[in-house]
């Protein structure tokens, strides 16, 4: 696999918000089909990574580079990144009353299709696909007519994110603490949805605080993020190690030694 072209390469990235540096020398290389888990304590910069990669206003990159599918990601607009195949599943998806879920899905699917030179999807075809996706994530069909995430429970919002992912078929999915606030059944459902989408040409970054999601989605690599950079990388067993040890060991000095441990895919 080492000869495969990378899907995402982050090199020595420094970024933050309003002068506050949060990402401090971040390196990551992801090849098509790989599943990477990024774990770490609160405040390590896990969510910031997602915002920086998606291009959220206010998140400034100071230095470093991000290459996505051969393109300079940092020069692209938010929607261009999405249309190029980047998908961020939010920890707290926003509620948009007045914009129906179905209308939103159509605009979104059409945008991605247009970027790929395809025609807009017909309403009936979209409805068919959306219904199937709802079924897969166990979201009642009535939710398609409701405002985007409007009045959805935490778990329903997460499933709605997943439903969008199923329809948009991105190349890289970043799941930002998708497991937070989910009970075990919902967690399994989300994991099942993700696993069904694993393929040779789709990669995942699973950002999580806890190991339990990784019981159901087996990552190829696990990285520990602390103070804005990856301080340790390993295979799935690292997650178990973290589970038993917690994150307190990060505070000890020897972390530095592991900082450069880079996993070669």
């Amino acid at each position, binding site marked *: 696999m080492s000869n495969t072209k990378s899907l995402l390469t982050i090199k020595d990235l420094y970024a933050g918000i309003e002068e506050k540096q949060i990402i401090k020398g971040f390196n990551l290389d992801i090849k098509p089909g790989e599943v990477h888990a990024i774990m770490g304590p609160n405040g390590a910069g896990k969510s910031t990574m997602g915002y920086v990669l*998606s*291009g*959220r*206003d206010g998140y400034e990159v100071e230095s470093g580079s991000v290459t996505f599918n051969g393109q300079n990601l940092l020069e692209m*607009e*938010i*929607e261009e*990144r*999405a*249309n190029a195949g980047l*998908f*961020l599943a*939010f920890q707290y*998806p*926003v509620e*948009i*009353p*007045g*914009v*129906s879920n179905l*209308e*939103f899905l159509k*605009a*979104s699917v059409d*945008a*991605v299709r247009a*970027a790929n030179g395809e025609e807009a999807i017909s309403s009936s075809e979209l409805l068919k696909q959306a219904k199937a996706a709802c079924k897969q994530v166990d979201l009642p069909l009535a939710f398609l007519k409701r*405002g*985007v995430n409007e009045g959805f429970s935490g778990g329903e919002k997460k499933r709605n994110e997943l439903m*969008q992912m199923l329809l*948009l078929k991105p190349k890289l999915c970043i799941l930002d603490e998708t497991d937070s606030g989910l009970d075990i059944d919902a967690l399994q459902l989300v994991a099942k949805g993700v696993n069904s989408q694993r393929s040779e040409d789709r990669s995942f970054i699973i950002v999580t605080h806890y190991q339990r999601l990784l019981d159901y989605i087996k990552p190829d690599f696990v990285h520990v993020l602390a103070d804005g950079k990856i301080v340790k990388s390993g295979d799935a067993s690292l997650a178990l190690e973290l589970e038993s040890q917690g994150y307190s060991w990060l505070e000890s000095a020897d972390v530095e030694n592991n900082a450069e441990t880079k996993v070669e895919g």
Partner: protein
Amino acid sequence: MSEWLESAISRGHQIDDWLAPKRTQAIDLLSTTSWPTRKTEAWRYTSLRAVQNSKAHEIETKTNLLPEHITNLSAIELVFVNGKLDKEQLPDVLPKGLSICLGSDLNKEQQLQALDNFSEIKPKRHLFGLVNDALAQDVVMVSVEDGVNIAEPLRISSLLSLGSESHTRVYVTLGEGSQLAVIEDVQAEGDSLNTAFVEYNVSAKAHLEHYRFALQTGSNVSVGGCHFNLLDHSTMHSTIVAFGSDLSRLDTDIIHSGQFVDAKLNAIYLLDGNELFDLHATVEHAVPNGTTEENVRCIVAGRAKAVFNGRIHIHRDAQKTLAELNNRNLLMSKTAEINTKPELEIYADDVRCAHGATSAQVDDKALYYLQTRGIDRAKANVMLNFGFINELIDLMPNAVLSEWIRPIIRQRFSEMEVRV
């Protein structure tokens, strides 16, 4: 005093019918009222020039206009043509418990009784309400018997032909525990002038669902009012959808006369070109334990002008009142104008009352969210702006009406003149 008002008064003097005592009362008040200027608070942002310059006059001719077709709507049609009730369009058989009749067709005794109630809900301060008292052509009385639920909505359509002046008047009584939905709408040709006032007396435990569609545009002048008197444990849900015209003004009064009343008012306006729409909404909490929720949202483009005055008056004894007034506005062009004024007057100490008026910006987080799904910024803005209005359409209790109005509003929104 303006010539127009002088003419209205003299024409009012000439009408001699069962309403004469009320007409005289109104004329007396009008005679001592000065014609509003820009210094008159109630007309500060809305010029009456269009009324003064109007050449409209009462005409007898029939019109080719028909009430706007509303797909899938099955309603009891009450049609006014230039202020006159078109009896031919009334259904032959009305649902049991519903009566619709002309005030002039009542017997003497009934007329005396009707006189007692007529124009008692509509406050006397409305200048054009008094004009309507003086000049109302056919006064239609609608009444629902106690405990009766009228399944089909009653639709009151006003058809106004070219150059016509008309004064439409309806009085609706909901008996105790009854239920009724009323749709008021207008079809207007150019240069028409209409005053239209509807009073609603909602008895205890009754439920009124109400819509007023003021979609007339162009050189029409419309001044009207909806006035609701709400008794113990009654509920009302009203939706106003308005476009603008040369002059379009609506006054609503929601009067909590009984306790434990729940009143909701949602208003949407979309204005473009040189249009004007002015909503003055007053809520009177005269007694304790009332609830009012008001949402007013407008999108204004071109050189259009929106006016909103939202007054909530909580009287000294109206403890435990919950009142909320929310007004959000979106300016689509630099030359558009919004004049908004929430007025809270609270004389009771144990109440919860909130108001907010904002000239809304699109929510950044929502914009970002849509963009992360590939939707470009411009399109996302349009979706969010329309969503801002659509949210209130979603709240319309009658799905047939919301499905009908949604594309009409969407169309208007998409054609709006944006000048940044």
